[in-house]
């Protein structure tokens, strides 16, 4: 780990930016061999805790590497896919035991493995961490989105075949306590 003066200055300016921007809640930066993860409490306007973190800190960015396996649009079995970011539901009403599944990339949302097939999950379904919730098509590459938590699907927020943005909430899961 070797940070020189300009690096530190630049890092500081990033943290300053997060502190002055009202709508940034989390920030992760990989800078050489240093990873920085900044998370800000949503309610309290206190200063953001800054922690130099090892790569064990689960940053969304680190998980968004493209899937290594290629897949064509026709492939029935979705390719092994990148995992997704798990973030607290942004809505004010989100309970503490609810997690919102967000889109790891901009693309098209499919609720089922094939047109006409039953959906991976419906509201009320119980899911485990490795359950596939939906598929995101990114340039004809079919990416599985997994639950990553054990719980019950309480909301599905997008329609089949809908275009979704990066970070867009897709589903809400009530986590087992």
């Amino acid at each position, binding site marked *: 780990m070797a940070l020189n003066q300009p690096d530190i200055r630049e890092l500081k300016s*990033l943290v300053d*930016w997060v502190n*002055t921007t*009202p709508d940034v809640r989390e*920030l992760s930066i990989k800078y050489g061999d240093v990873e920085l993860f900044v998370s800000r409490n949503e309610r309290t306007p206190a200063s953001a805790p800054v922690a130099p973190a090892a790569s064990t800190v689960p940053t969304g960015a680190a998980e968004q590497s493209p899937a290594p396996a290629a897949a064509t649009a026709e492939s029935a079995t979705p390719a092994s896919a990148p995992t997704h970011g798990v973030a607290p539901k942004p809505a004010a009403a989100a309970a503490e035991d609810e997690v919102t599944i967000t889109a790891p990339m901009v*693309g098209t949302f499919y609720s089922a493995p094939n047109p006409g097939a039953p959906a991976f999950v419906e509201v009320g379904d119980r899911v485990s961490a490795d359950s596939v919730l939906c598929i995101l098509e990114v*340039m004809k590459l079919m990416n599985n989105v997994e639950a990553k938590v054990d719980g019950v699907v309480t909301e599905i927020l997008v329609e089949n075949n809908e*275009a979704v943005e990066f970070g867009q909430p897709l589903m809400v899961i009530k986590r087992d306590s």
Partner: protein
Amino acid sequence: MTAKQLNSILIANRGEIALRIVRACKELGITSVLAYSEADRSSLPVKLADRAVCIGPASASKSYQDPRAIISAALAFKVDAIHPGYGFLAENADFAEMCETEGVGFVGPASSIIRNMGDKIQAKKIARRAGVPTVPGSDGAIAQHAEAVAVANEVGYPLLIKASAGGGGRGMRVVESAETLERDLAEIMSEAETAFGDPAVYLERYLTDIRHIEIQVVSDGESTVHLGERDCTAQRRNQKLVEESPSPVLDEELRVSLAEAAVALCQEVGYRNAGTVEFVFDNLERRYYFIEMNTRIQVEHPVSEMVTGIDLIKLQLEIAAGNPLPIAQDDITIRGHAIECRINAEDPAQAFAPKPGRIESFRAPGGFGVRLDTHIETGYVIPPFYDSMVGKLIVWGNDRDEAIARALRALDEMHVEGVTTTAGFQRDILDSATFRSGDFNTAFVAEFLEGETA
């Protein structure tokens, strides 16, 4: 009205150029879908676009510079074409090729043209084929001393010898005259042999008293028009600071000759898009040489818009829709003089260190002949992830003197609180006797800065 029109485009960029494209779309009735990173969520272009789509996190490599994210957004949100703006993926041949493969329109030339023009040696060859003068020099690397001497005497002096395997300033020498050529050549070649295991050298005329002049072109694949030149000689560390049109040093004959050269180059490759053909202009010999072509819209395009009245972004979109050029060369006349100043969030007193931060208060300059292309507003937080340009002030005047007076007036009027900008520095540059005289070369800004600290 033209026959065909795009229904919607994805704007794969940010900042002032994203806003510039949003504006053109609004005026044309094209739906603008703006691809933005999380860092730009509350930016003005996002607010003003018809639709905005988050494509990734702040890091450009995972958003604006990620071909997969951009093309995926274009496919998912079903746009007709992608406008790449400048920078990021605008001159990335692989990206353009992916667009072609995926069947997504690209506001730019074919990927093969981007690739050819992006390769400096290839571009020079094409220029020569089109009869466009290039900087005199060897056609390639020369390993034989005798051959090098012969070529050197053809190229002329001062002459730059560059070791083929060198780089970063190593293995370079300027030869002032034929007298020392053979000795210099022998020394460089043997040094190169020792250092890199390769004696081969490139030879090129060493130009020092030069200006940077470029021609704005627009082609539809069949025919090409030009919108006159832009003079971008006022640069700091190869970054353009002030651009103007017309150039204060060209006479009518040279002006026509430069423009014709640029058009010939476009015709040679069947160019299709707005583009810029860049030249160095040798002040002493008053000759120009092709250096490169930019196959995209440029930061300084408004300078040409102001003197011609032609909206270049609209032309790009018309051509991308498959329309022939709606204007002929005869329709284009240059009126008056335009100057652009790039305003960066940088501190000139701290070696132009970037100064991201919150704009506490912003008031745009206004009035006759003043155009401001900017994405900043009161309360905007300049993110530290991207370049530091926060806006462009473009002024128009009946002549260069009026344009300078207007630029100074507008720079004084512009009010930015909370962030340090280069507006004051730009003011000093424009107000200097040297800039006012029009008589300077690419070393001007560096000399100006030295003079200030001296």
